């Protein structure tokens, strides 16, 4: 049986990391995250540049404002929840057994990596891979590897970078760490301070019986923790795949381009997360919270699941241009549904078909040019009512399912909208008609062909005539005239061509 191995992943200043993750332009600036009620806001997290300027945690807003160029961003719990899920997914790539050990404003996960050396290499290589995976997701983490759960957790929380604790040397690795890492009350911490006990090494050196006599049974556990010998009952959590990212803007965003700038990063992150599980993005639901309390939703449904970031962003761009939000955007949330990436067997002799993802973009562009609901594959409706058809989305995967036989038929060219005309009758037959200022003499008229329906509602009652006519120059014209019998109105419906 292989020896135990725990990897602790510690993301310090998590609220700041979360906010900077989707705002890389702020990473080179001093940033402090404010938390608390409006008038009592204090700094809860800050980045390295802010620390260099003298900012510290628990600093009030007034004190923070005195620091030059310090960017202050309000804390977003919603973004933190999404980011926590992302970090958990990163960790889940290395082990299915993960326990959360977050404290304060830090986010910490401890992985039970026992037996994973064959997959990911020795502990050092595994820790490096884990740190890189977190970095690619936008997190700066410290990783500690140890055979003891708590040793790994405490070492990661106090030491940046990667630390490997050799089995049996836990006490030595922890000896210089502050006792604040133990879960002490303020009174207990003060007592130890009075005694001059400041590090875990000093704590571990205290006589066990005397310590228990003063602080009770819990002191025994402190001592074990400090020596790196405390046992732990591992309680794994189940990471669920929820591909959702959320970004709350500091100020309302009005320009679509600015919105897409953030959306591009979110889509990038979602695609990466889907790819890590050998999946693809099947659909995207984009929710925007607008100024004034309204919300705006866009839905993207590519023809096939895709991992092409540019393609998904282009679809979102076209959709947002076609359906722009009616007010400035306060927050943006994108949720992805996943599917399996399509695999299509192409053939040398198979007829060419439009590439599905490219067709999606083309159709979206066409809709932007000619308008919504004016692009698609026509479908006849099951009714005798004239002009009954609808347009449905064209799918490149569709091939000939119907068994229509090509035939040579006279086609009609419809007149849309229908043109009212004046018709002279001879008996019941049309004799001549006027259309757009021109007079046409009817040589032959075949009809009437009557149809009616929907008598209960939206009734129609029409009479059609197939007409051969000539204009004043003698040019022939074949057309379809119709009379609305309900309103006794003539109109030009179509031309034979």
């Amino acid at each position, binding site marked *: 049986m292989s020896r135990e191995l725990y990897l602790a992943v510690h993301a310090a200043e998590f609220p700041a990391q979360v906010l900077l993750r989707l705002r890389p332009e702020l990473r080179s600036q001093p940033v402090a995250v404010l938390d608390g009620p409006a008038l009592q806001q204090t700094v809860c997290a800050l980045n390295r540049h802010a620390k260099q300027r003298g900012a510290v945690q628990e600093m009030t807003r007034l004190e923070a404002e005195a620091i030059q160029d310090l960017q202050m961003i309000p804390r977003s719990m919603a973004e933190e929840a999404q980011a926590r899920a992302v970090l958990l997914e990163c960790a889940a790539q290395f082990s299915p057994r993960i326990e959360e050990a977050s404290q304060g404003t830090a986010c910490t996960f401890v992985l039970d990596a026992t037996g994973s050396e064959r997959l990911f290499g020795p502990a050092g290589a595994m820790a490096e891979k884990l740190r890189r995976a977190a970095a690619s997701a936008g997190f700066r983490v410290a990783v500690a590897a140890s055979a003891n759960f708590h040793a790994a957790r405490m070492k990661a929380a106090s030491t940046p970078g990667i630390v490997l604790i050799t089995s049996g040397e836990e006490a030595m690795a922890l000896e210089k760490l502050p006792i604040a890492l133990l879960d002490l009350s303020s009174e207990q911490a003060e007592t130890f301070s009075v005694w001059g006990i400041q590090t875990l090494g000093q704590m571990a050196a205290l006589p066990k019986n005397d310590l228990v006599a003063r602080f009770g049974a819990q002191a025994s556990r402190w001592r074990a923790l400090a020596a790196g010998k405390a046992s732990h009952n591992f309680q794994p959590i189940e990471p669920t795949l929820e591909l959702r990212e959320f970004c709350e803007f500091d100020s309302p965003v009005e320009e679509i381009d600015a919105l897409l700038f953030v959306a591009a990063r979110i889509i990038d992150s979602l695609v990466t997360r889907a790819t890590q599980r050998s999946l693809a993005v099947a659909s995207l639901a984009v929710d925007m919270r607008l100024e004034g309390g309204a919300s705006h939703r866009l839905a993207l449904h590519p023809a096939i699941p895709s991992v092409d970031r540019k393609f998904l962003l282009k679809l979102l761009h076209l959709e947002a241009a076609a359906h722009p939000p009616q007010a400035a955007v306060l927050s943006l949330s994108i949720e992805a549904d996943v599917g399996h990436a399509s695999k299509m067997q192409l053939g040398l002799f198979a007829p060419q078909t439009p590439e599905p993802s*490219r067709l999606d973009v083309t159709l979206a562009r066409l809709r932007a040019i000619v308008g*919504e609901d004016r692009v698609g594959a026509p479908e006849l409706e099951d009714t005798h009512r004239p002009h009954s058809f609808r347009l449905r989305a064209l799918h490149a995967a569709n091939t000939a399912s119907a068994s229509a036989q090509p035939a040579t038929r006279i*086609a009609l060219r419809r007149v849309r909208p229908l043109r009212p005309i004046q018709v002279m009758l001879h008996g019941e037959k049309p004799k001549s008609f006027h259309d757009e200022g021109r007079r046409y003499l009817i040589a032959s008229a075949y009809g009437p062909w009557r149809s009616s329906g929907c008598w209960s509602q939206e009734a129609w009652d029409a009479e059609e005539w197939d007409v051969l006519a000539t204009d004043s120059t003698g040019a022939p014209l074949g057309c379809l005239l119709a009379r609305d019998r309900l309103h006794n109105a003539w109109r030009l419906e179509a031309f034979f061509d």
Partner: protein
Amino acid sequence: MPASATLRLQIERSLEARFPAALTPVPRTIRETAATGIAAVDELLDGGFPVGAISELVGPSCSGRTSLALAFLAERTAEERFCAWVDAEDAFDPESAAASGVLLEQLLWVRCGGAKKEREKNWTRLEQALKATDLLLQAGGFAAIVLDLAGIDPTEGMRIPLATWFRYRQAADRTRCSLLVLGRASYAQSSAAMVLDAEPMRLEEVGGTMLHAGAFALSRRRQRFPQQWNNARKPPTSTWTASAPWAVEQSA
């Protein structure tokens, strides 16, 4: 070596600085064609409309342009290929297309002239049709695209820049797409591989009560890549007929 061949070789060598292979015929390029399904028309076109090129079908109203285009699309969709109809006038009739045998689920219909929102640019129908055709040609994957300009005024159509047609020709060639342009006049000029003139002939009736069929004339005005060198005997004009859908139903 025969004397004539020797003589030809000598002449070609003496002229090769100015005319490479002066007396040797230029190798013929066999262009792929797509049949229309109408025997008389296919014979006139040496097999059908050229693939990867622009063809123009020019004629007045009732000259059978739409019927011929639908017959062509029916053949293409029957081969499990995708086609598109860019409808500048919004005159396409899906019922006629279905009656002609076009598989509607493989046909993309772009209806130009839709109501635009205030913030969007207000393009004319013709501009919309040209942009849509450009996008479809660039996207590729369509075996045939019909650009229906039959309802567009010829003076308006003549203003389409030649660069547009040249771009279409290049894109059609690259994507192996047959671009068929319906119009009242020829617009593509030198970019068109084939220009056909359509004329109405007569509409036939049955017993004076019902329209039965239509006869149309088609003549070849221009063909850039003739498939046969010596086709002087072939008449440049052909006639073809199309029956009315209801006439077929009646006989069936």
